[in-house]
C-alpha cells in the first residue's frame, strides 16, 4: 500500500505537526500508543467485534438501479455508510480512537463537531465505553442541527456552544484544541476527520479504510471487476479517504472528491479548499486552506454543516498535487436537488453532505456510458437535515 505519511507525518509537503509545544508531548505519546495498538491483534479483534455487532458492518454495497436509469449511463453503486449505527461513517473512526483511548487509560473524551454526526458518534461510543464526553460545537451549527444536539445530550455528553470566530466547525476545533492544551494529561481528543496534527490524518484514514476494503471485495463479488471511479463528498475528507485508500494503487480507478461549492466557487461563499484555496497552516497541519491575501483564514460556507470547513485533510492536498485524485465541486442548490432526487428515486434520504457527491456521480455516469461502473460513498443519512430541507421548501413541520 501507500508508503506515506513519512515519520514526520508528511504527505509530500502537507501534514506535519503544527501545534503549541504544550501539545507536542501528548501528541507524541498518542502516536506511540497508536503505533503499538495497530500491531496488536487483540486491538483489531476488539475493533472488528464492535464493527460487526455494534456498528453493523459490513455496510451493504447497493446497486442503485433507479439512479442508474435516471443517469442513463454507468452503473451506480452506493456504499451504504448511512446504514451504520448513528447514521454515518463517523462511527468507524470513533470506534478506533476510543478503543485507543481506553488502552491509554484516558476517560475524558473531547471532540469537535460540525453537522453533529461526529459528535453523536463520539457521544455514543463514550456512553458504550463508560467515558466522559464533551463535544465542542459552533453556536451556528447548534442552531441548524438541533436534533443531533439533543441526541448527544441524551447520550450523556456535554455539548459546549462555541461562540468565538464564526461559531462553526473551525472554531469548535480551536476550542477543542484549547481544552486539550489545558487538560492534556487526562484527555483524549477524538478528531473527526483526516486532518489535524500527525498522527490523526493517518490514524483516521486507517480506521475509515474499512469502507474501501469492504467496497472493493463487494464490487468484485457483484461485478467481477474494479469500478471505473469512486466518488465521495469532502469536508475534511474522512469518508473520501476511507473509501479511496484501498484503491490508491489501482491506477485505473479514478478517485473523485466533491467539495462544497456553497453559492458557487466564484463567490466568497463556498467551502472548496482545493478549488479555491492555497497551502497554509491551520489546526496542526499544512494543507490547502481558504485564506485571504494576508494569510488570515476565510469563512467557509456550505448549506451542509459537515462540509463547512476552510481546510481539508493533508492527504487530499497531496493526492490533488500529484494528480492521483480529481477534485470537483457541487453547489448548495445542486446538493438540495440531489437530496430530493435520491429520496424519491431510491427511497434513501441522504445526508446533505453525501448529496453533494450525487450530481458529479450522475455527470460521470453519463461520461462513462453504459459500460461504466461507479461506486459513490453514501456517507450518511439525512434524517438530521429534514428540518433544513423543509425550511428551504417553505414547509412547516
Amino acid at each position, binding site marked *: 500500500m501507500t508508503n506515506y505519511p513519512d515519520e*514526520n507525518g508528511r504527505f509530500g509537503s502537507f501534514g*506535519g*505537526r*503544527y*501545534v*503549541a*509545544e*504544550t*501539545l*507536542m*508531548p*501528548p501528541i*507524541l505519546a498518542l502516536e506511540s500508543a497508536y503505533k503499538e495498538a495497530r500491531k496488536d491483534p487483540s486491538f483489531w479483534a476488539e475493533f472488528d467485534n464492535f464493527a460487526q455487532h455494534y456498528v453493523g458492518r459490513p455496510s451493504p454495497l447497493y446497486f442503485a438501479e433507479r439512479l442508474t436509469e435516471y443517469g442513463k449511463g454507468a452503473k451506480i453503486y452506493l456504499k451504504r455508510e448511512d446504514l451504520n449505527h448513528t447514521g454515518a461513517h463517523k462511527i468507524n473512526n470513533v470506534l478506533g480512537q476510543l478503543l485507543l483511548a481506553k488502552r491509554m487509560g484516558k476517560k475524558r473524551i473531547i471532540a469537535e463537531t460540525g453537522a453533529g454526526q461526529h459528535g453523536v458518534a463520539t457521544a455514543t461510543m463514550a456512553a458504550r465505553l463508560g467515558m466522559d464526553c464533551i463535544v465542542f460545537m459552533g453556536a451556528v451549527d447548534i442552531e441548524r442541527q438541533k436534533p443531533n444536539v439533543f441526541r448527544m445530550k441524551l447520550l450523556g455528553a456535554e455539548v459546549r456552544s462555541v461562540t*468565538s*470566530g464564526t461559531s462553526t466547525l*473551525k*472554531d469548535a*476545533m*480551536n476550542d477543542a*484544541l*484549547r481544552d486539550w*492544551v*489545558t487538560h*492534556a*494529561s487526562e484527555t483524549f481528543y477524538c478528531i473527526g476527520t483526516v486532518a489535524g496534527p500527525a498522527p490523526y490524518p493517518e490514524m483516521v484514514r486507517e480506521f475509515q479504510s474499512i469502507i474501501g476494503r469492504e467496497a472493493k471485495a463487494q464490487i468484485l463479488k457483484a461485478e467481477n471487476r474494479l469500478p471505473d471511479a469512486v466518488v465521495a463528498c469532502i469536508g475534511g475528507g474522512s469518508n473520501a479517504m476511507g473509501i479511496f485508500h484501498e484503491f490508491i494503487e489501482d491506477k485505473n480507478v479514478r478517485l473523485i472528491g466533491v467539495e462544497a461549492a456553497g453559492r458557487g466557487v466564484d463567490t466568497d461563499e463556498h467551502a472548496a479548499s482545493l478549488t479555491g484555496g*492555497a497551502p*497554509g*497552516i*491551520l*489546526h*496542526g497541519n*499544512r494543507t490547502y*486552506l481558504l*485564506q485571504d*491575501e*494576508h*494569510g*488570515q*483564514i476565510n469563512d467557509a460556507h456550505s448549506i451542509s454543516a459537515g462540509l463547512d470547513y476552510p481546510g481539508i485533510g493533508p492527504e487530499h492536498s497531496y493526492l490533488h498535487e500529484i494528480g492521483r485524485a480529481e477534485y470537483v465541486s457541487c453547489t448548495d442548490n445542486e446538493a438540495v436537488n440531489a437530496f430530493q432526487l435520491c429520496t424519491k428515486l431510491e427511497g434513501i434520504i441522504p445526508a446533505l453532505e453525501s448529496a453533494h457527491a450525487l450530481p458529479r456521480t450522475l455527470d460521470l455516469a453519463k461520461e462513462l456510458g453504459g459500460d461504466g461502473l461507479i461506486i459513490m460513498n453514501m456517507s450518511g443519512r439525512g434524517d438530521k437535515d429534514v428540518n433544513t430541507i423543509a425550511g428551504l421548501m417553505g414547509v412547516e413541520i
Partner: protein
Amino acid sequence: MTTRIDKTFARLRAANQSGFVAYIMGGDPSHAASLELMKALPDAGVDIIELGMPFTDPAADGPVIELAGLRALKSGTTVRSVLDMATDFRKDNDDTPIILMGYANPIHHMGYAEFAAAAKDSGVDGAIIVDLPPEEDGELRAAFDQHDLALIRLATPTTDDARLPTVVAGTKGFVYYVSVAGITGAAKGENAAISDAVNRIRTASGLPVVVGFGIKTPEQSAQVAAHADAVVVGSAIVEAFHKNGKDAALALVKNLSAAAQVNRP
C-alpha cells in the same frame, strides 16, 4: 555581534535583577493607538516588548488575546503593518528588544525568507511562533539565522527531560517557559514548579529563561521574578488597555515591572 536581547539580559544580570516583558497586540484597537502604547512601554519599566501579530484562529490563546486579535484584524492589521510599528518605534529607541509573537499561517503565506528579511529591516530582534514546534521550525530558523534574529522556543510543564534537549537545541536569545499547561490568560502555575522548571531549562539551554502565562498582579509578578530571568505579562495588560485605555495600562505595567525588577536574593 551582541544583540539587543543579549545586552538587555547582561544589564539585568549586572544589576542582579529580573526583567519585565510586556505583550501587546499590534493594531489593537488601531495602528496609531497601539503604537502610542508601545512607545510608552520602556519608560513604564518594560525591558523587552512582545508585539502580537493577529491571527483569525489563535488556538493557543484565551478570549482576551483572541478578541484583541479580532479587533486588530478589523482595524486592517497585517504582518507588514505590525512590522511598520517596529520601524516607527526604532526611530526613538535602539535598545529595547522587540519580539514578534504570532501564528505560522500569516508568515508562511508571506514566505519565511521574506518575513525574516522584513523583520530584520524593521528593527525586530526575534519571534515566537506559537504553532511552530521545534519539529516544524527548521525553515524559519534557517531564515532567521541568516539575519541574526532569534527564534524563541517555548518550554511548557509538559516538556519533560526526554523532550527538553529537542526544545533547547539551536535556540537563541532566551527560552520562554509557559508556566501553565493551558491557554493565555489562564490561572498562574505553582511557584515551586516554576522554580524547578526554570532551573532545569536554564541548565539545559545556557540561556535566560523568561516565564509567562497566568501572571496578572504585581504580587504574582514578584513571586515569579524570584525564579525567572524575566516575567511576561500579556492578557492583563491587553485587557487593561482595552477596558480602561493607555494610562491605566501603563499604570499596571509600572506596578508589574517594579514588582518584577526587585533585586534578587
